[in-house]
């Protein structure tokens, strides 16, 4: 044993040479080889001069269970550790951190960031009391949330309330939340949001169909004021036909805001789909055929052009990950992965179209190939589950 352990005390610079060619999960694995390595790897991580290669995003799948879907194994894994309690809801992610709320008390919510790798938790000290006044009746809760960075000082957090008329913003670790509302009589609804740096971008509903921008630093005289940045690219006309309660939609478009964390660029994703479904009480009750994508378009916000506008971009060297609560675009070069694993011209999708009569018919976990416009579904065994999971992309990080 004594003579065997010559590599136990591998010089740190030599270890670093190996490490910098590996992603985070391998860093943590090397850390668990032996105690001297644990110390060396911890030091390398702490010094931040030798960062790991980027990890592939994972999908957090949550129903009565908590599971992770991995692209490298193309399968769903169950975690032994309890990450979240029943009353916890995930509203979004930023790098490896999940943005979670605790809704045990009605009318208010507490929030925290949870690192899915280290299980570290960072509490938001200020409770959010949902505004009692709203254009929309009913119980108030948070829908989607975004953050400007990992939960460090000067990080901004923002979320759309489920009435789509209010956005709550918060700067870590200040005393209180600020509520933004649309201008009076504008009849605008907030549909989606993303933060880049200190700018909050908000996508409005299909009638006003534009991007508003708020300067989050500007909160000295009340809530930040909206500035209309640009209109969104035109949507295709939805063609809908129905016989009785049986409906067919052609060119139904789903819109998502996405960001590229590394390049700090804002993207817009249009996913055109055809669907056939049955209706009960004015809502979709079951899909006769699962929503089928005909095409997906990705636009990049061109800030340096005058006027500011959208550029339809090719996806050969980029890849997009779409889920209701988090969308992202990444450079394939940066991902540094096996080209087979992350193919070009592909959109990775983890969505759930609500449909009460046959819930699983609206569940989508797969990859859409733009070249031949076909969807490949990843295997997911539905028999062990009662409820359809909510899905959310996140990128493991420390």
């Amino acid at each position, binding site marked *: 044993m004594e003579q065997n352990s010559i590599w136990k005390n591998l010089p740190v610079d030599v270890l670093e040479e190996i490490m910098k060619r590996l992603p985070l999960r391998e860093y943590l694995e090397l850390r668990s*080889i032996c105690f001297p390595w644990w110390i060396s790897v911890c030091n390398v991580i702490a010094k931040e001069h030798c960062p790991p290669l980027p990890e592939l995003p994972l999908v957090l799948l949550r129903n009565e269970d908590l599971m992770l879907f991995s692209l490298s194994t193309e399968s769903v894994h169950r975690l032994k550790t309890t990450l979240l309690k029943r009353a916890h809801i995930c509203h979004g992610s930023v790098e490896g951190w999940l943005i979670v709320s605790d809704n045990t008390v009605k009318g208010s919510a507490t929030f925290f960031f949870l690192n899915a790798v280290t299980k570290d938790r960072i509490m938001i000290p200020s409770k959010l009391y949902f505004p009692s006044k709203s254009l929309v009746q009913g119980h108030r809760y948070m829908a989607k949330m975004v953050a400007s960075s990992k939960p460090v000082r000067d990080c901004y957090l923002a979320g759309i309330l489920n009435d789509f008329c209010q956005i709550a913003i918060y700067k870590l670790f200040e005393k209180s939340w600020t509520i933004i509302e649309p201008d009076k009589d504008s009849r605008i609804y907030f549909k989606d949001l993303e933060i880049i740096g200190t700018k909050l971008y908000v996508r409005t509903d299909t009638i006003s169909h534009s991007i508003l921008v708020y300067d989050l630093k500007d909160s000295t005289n009340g809530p930040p004021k909206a500035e209309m940045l640009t209109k969104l690219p035109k949507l295709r006309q939805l063609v809908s036909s129905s016989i009785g309660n049986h409906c067919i939609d052609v060119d139904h478009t789903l819109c998502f805001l996405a960001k590229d964390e590394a390049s700090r660029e804002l993207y817009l994703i249009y996913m055109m789909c055809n669907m056939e479904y049955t209706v009960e009480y004015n809502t979709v009750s079951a899909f006769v055929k699962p929503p089928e994508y005909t095409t997906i378009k990705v636009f990049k916000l061109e800030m340096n052009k005058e006027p500011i506008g959208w550029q339809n971009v090719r996806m050969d060297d980029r890849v997009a990950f779409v889920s209701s609560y988090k969308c992202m675009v990444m450079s394939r070069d940066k991902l540094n992965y096996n080209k087979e694993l992350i193919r070009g011209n592909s959109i990775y999708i983890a969505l759930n179209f609500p449909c009460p009569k046959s819930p699983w018919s609206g569940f989508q976990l797969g990859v859409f190939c733009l070249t031949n416009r076909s969807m490949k579904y990843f295997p997911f065994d539905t028999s062990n589950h009662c409820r359809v999971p909510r899905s959310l992309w996140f990128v493991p990080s420390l």
Partner: protein
Amino acid sequence: MAAEKSSIKIITLIAADGSVFEVEPNIVKEMKTVQSYIDELDQNTVSIPLPNVFGNDLAMIIEYCKKHASEEETKEAKEEFDFEFVKRMKSDDKLRLLQAASYLNMESFLQFMAKAIAAEIENQSVEFVRDYFQIESDFTPEEEAELRKENEWAFK
């Protein structure tokens, strides 16, 4: 000074086990440790002891340097050589060569070895990596369990 240096014809490298290698100056260019030694000396012939590198390893490093310093060899031939070079080595050899590269301050060879090792341990289990480096765990079973929890999300 510059003229004198270019007159050096042969460099003698002496490995830790005493074995002697005579090489041309262009071969050791990549070995910065050796090169700085040569630069300091004002002699026509030099003999350099390398107490941290064994003869077998030095022979391999010189073989690699010769191939890569050659102007006649095509890029494809060099790549083919690299592939075969790594293939015939055991994990122990790679680690020793990596350490030697670090000691000799050979940037591109160090990167080449590190890449080869990284490729072999990536996506492997903790047990595999321990075997590879011939290290036995010194963690308690409780610590092991805790570490496994930490790596739970790293699916392979």
